[in-house]
């Protein structure tokens, strides 16, 4: 049976989004069924036209900025392309931001409600970043 990991990415801090992307990428290419749910302060970084970079939470974020660390969007894209991961936007957060599906980055698989996300997660692990 395929392991399933559901990832809730809600922080707007760079290190946390990066860690969520790293987990999604490595998990999906290792054969895990990965579903990512972007909500709260993470979602604005996946809206077209919002090019601001997430702020650093601490020393690691500052250090990573000066090194050849794969960008988190690239890792999410690789999780999808190489491992079949799904990336959804929280429909409630979209309503709050007043954005439509057309406003989301092309990479996203569309809006998803929390109820459906939790239902799909089933008995699998849910990781929160």
């Amino acid at each position, binding site marked *: 049976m395929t392991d399933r990991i559901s990832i809730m990415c809600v922080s707007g801090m760079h290190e946390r989004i990066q860690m969520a992307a790293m987990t999604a990428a490595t998990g999906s*290419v290792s*054969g895990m069924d990965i579903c990512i749910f972007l909500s709260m302060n993470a979602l604005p970084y996946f809206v077209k036209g919002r090019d601001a970079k997430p702020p650093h939470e601490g020393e690691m974020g500052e250090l990573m900025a000066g090194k050849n660390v794969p960008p988190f969007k690239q890792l999410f894209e690789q999780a999808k392309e190489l491992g079949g991961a799904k990336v959804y936007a929280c429909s409630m957060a979209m309503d709050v931001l007043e954005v439509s599906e057309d406003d989301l980055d092309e990479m996203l698989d569309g809006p998803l409600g929390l109820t459906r996300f939790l239902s799909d997660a089933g008995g699998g692990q849910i990781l929160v970043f």
Partner: protein
Amino acid sequence: MSEENVKVVDARGSFCPGPLMELISNMKQIEVGDVLELLSTDKGSVADVPDWVNKVGHEMVGSEEKDGVWHIRVRKTK
């Protein structure tokens, strides 16, 4: 003995999981039986790549360090 078809993927300077993702991306572009040689300065690659190879069913050919660079060779089996 016939010469192996080896493609080198240079991921030196990239941090985790960059080298592994580079390897996987390139694996899709080579033929079954061909070998990829990943060059990585990320020490985690030495453990991560064999673990991934084992999980998905390819074949580890070997790994060695030369002057701070890991040379990890993987054969595509499927």
